[in-house]
């Protein structure tokens, strides 16, 4: 086993496209790291540089304590699961899994043992003789996983491995990947743009945007204390509401003239200066509570999600969404009074978009 260390890694594609702009990151041995970000933010590029499929334009990539910049993918002791599975179409499932071992000159009986073992773990024993085209998407996905685990590599790399599956299978495979990774204890780096996958799978969550890291932390860190407005609105669904506000004093801001108490607020902000106030749809309640601030909201329409309802409307002229358990608020409500827990308020600098929390 080995950890992965990135030091100011950069990628410049032909035509001066800077896809990755100096990323530094340490991934501990045996941990599950998820890279998440919008399309085109450079997640795949970063992963492919770790795999050795793209040259590294700057910085160093270390696997264990070995710098691998100049090392061939085959010699990096990694395995990768691709979005389109990339199975060898002309080989049986067995041969697909055995290929990497054969290339490394593993003895035949050892290959058989390992393939059988992987097939058992992934419940694909009955397909071993089939060609990939005779398998469903989910089964192909398992074969791709099998091909990765038989090799017993130092690091697993996943590039959106579940995005070609339907919603239900996705949840199921997600759980299986997590369980498998726990059981094998292999360092894993997983790329996705699905934030639910990102939250549920990761020990370490890396949010990227525009070729740079926005924030690194445990999923709950990132959710509770987003460092930038981008992270705040990217992680969490429905996204966090951002309201234009004004600094009133220590621990106090206002939105459209309504006072809000804030627990996590930087000291020394000049009263009267502009500030952005972030509130998660699931963190605000209808009604009033002791020690909570109040905001009024005009409701436009309601979305039914089954267990919950989304109330869409406006607070102080800005778009606002509230998530509530079904039945908690009458669906024909036109105007809501919301109670705000001071510890659930996030503040951001309108210029730098950075969090204005305690240091």
């Amino acid at each position, binding site marked *: 086993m080995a950890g992965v260390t990135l030091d100011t890694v950069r990628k410049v594609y032909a035509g001066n496209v800077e896809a990755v702009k100096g990323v530094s990151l340490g991934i501990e041995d045996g941990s599950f790291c998820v890279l998440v970000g919008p399309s085109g933010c450079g997640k795949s590029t970063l992963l492919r540089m770790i795999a050795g*499929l793209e040259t590294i334009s700057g910085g160093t990539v270390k696997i264990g304590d070995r710098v691998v910049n100049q090392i061939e*993918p*085959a010699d990096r002791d990694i395995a*990768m699961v*691709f979005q389109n599975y*990339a199975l060898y*179409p002309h080989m049986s499932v067995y041969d697909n899994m055995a*290929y990497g071992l054969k*290339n490394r000159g593993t003895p035949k009986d050892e290959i058989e043992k390992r393939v059988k073992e992987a097939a058992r773990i992934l419940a694909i024993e009955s397909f071993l003789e089939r060609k990939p085209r005779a398998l469903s998407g989910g089964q192909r996905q398992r074969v791709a996983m099998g091909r990765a685990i038989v*090799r017993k590599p130092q690091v697993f790399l996943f590039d959106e491995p579940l995005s070609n599956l339907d919603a239900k299978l996705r949840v199921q495979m997600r759980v299986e990947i997590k369980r498998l990774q726990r059981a094998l204890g292999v360092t894993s780096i997983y790329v996705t743009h699905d934030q639910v996958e990102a939250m549920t799978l990761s020990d370490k969550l890396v949010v990227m945007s525009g070729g740079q890291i926005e924030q690194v932390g445990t999923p709950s860190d990132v959710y509770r204390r987003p460092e930038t407005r981008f992270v705040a609105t990217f992680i969490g669904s429905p996204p966090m509401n951002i309201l234009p506000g004004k600094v009133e004093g220590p621990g106090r801001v206002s939105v459209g003239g309504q006072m809000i108490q804030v627990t996590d607020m930087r000291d020394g902000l000049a009263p009267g200066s502009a500030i952005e106030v972030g509130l998660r749809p699931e963190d605000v309640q209808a009604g009033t509570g002791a020690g909570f601030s109040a905001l009024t909201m005009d409701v436009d329409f309601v979305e039914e999600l089954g267990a919950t309802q989304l109330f869409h409307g406006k607070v102080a002229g800005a778009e606002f969404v509230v998530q509530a358990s079904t039945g908690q608020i009458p669906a024909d409500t036109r105007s809501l009074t919301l109670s705000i827990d001071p510890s659930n308020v996030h503040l951001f600098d309108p210029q730098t978009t950075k969090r204005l929390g305690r240091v």
Partner: protein
Amino acid sequence: MEKRALFSSKFLPYMLLLPQLAITIIFFYLPASQAIWQSFLMEDAFGLSSEFVGFENYRYLFQQPEYYRAMVNTAVFSTAVAVLSLACSLLLATQADKNLRGGEAYKTLLIWPYAVAPAIAGVLWIFMFHPSLGTLTRPIRAVGIDWNPLLNGDHAMLLLVLSATWKQISYNFLFFLAGLQSIPKSVIEAAAIDGAGPLRRFWTIIFPLLSPTTFFLIVVNIVYVFFDTFGIIDAVTGGGPAGQTTTLVYKVYADGRLGGDLGGSAAQSVILMVIVIGLTAIQFKYVERKVQY
């Protein structure tokens, strides 16, 4: 569900088929049946009358040692050209697939030879390799080879193989390049991560995945060498020296047109026809079955 069109009239479908049928009959079945009929006739020395002789033309044909030699020539020629042109074009296509700088110009240049007429291609090669006029003859002589394709049968055959191969490489190249580009990049990358070096990747992944293309090209190339190289042979060697580069097709022409033996020449074309039908049948059988993955 089956897809079928409904016609209110019984005649309409036949009428719609008629142009296609007419073309096939006029340009294929008519000449073919005429050749078959001709192959059972023998003309007198002056071409004034002909009489029905049954399989006499065929019997005579198979007694001629020249005919067997033409068969061997054809086999050597077609195998050499098919193998050489497929190998070269596959090599060139794998290089072109690498997306290097100047790749587009490289591809375009490789396609040009295909636009050159066979006879002109032959003349070009003669200019280079003619025993006394050829521009490349002197350097070859300089290294101690007594190069003379007009007298030496092996040299003549070599020259033919080279020029026919050169002409066919463009065509094969295009198909191989398309075949290579249809292999998903991630499959190759997966193999690279799986520890296969470039050569091993080629033989265990790329080559098997190209096999439908390769098989198709083998058939096309053999048919090409059988028939379309007539112009090249005529321009480069004229079947000589002493019939050493006469292939089956060239012999049809030589015997019928130059030798005036219409019956024998017709019998030869019938045999050629059978060979091609056989090749096509094999192709269909395979394309429908195996080969694909």
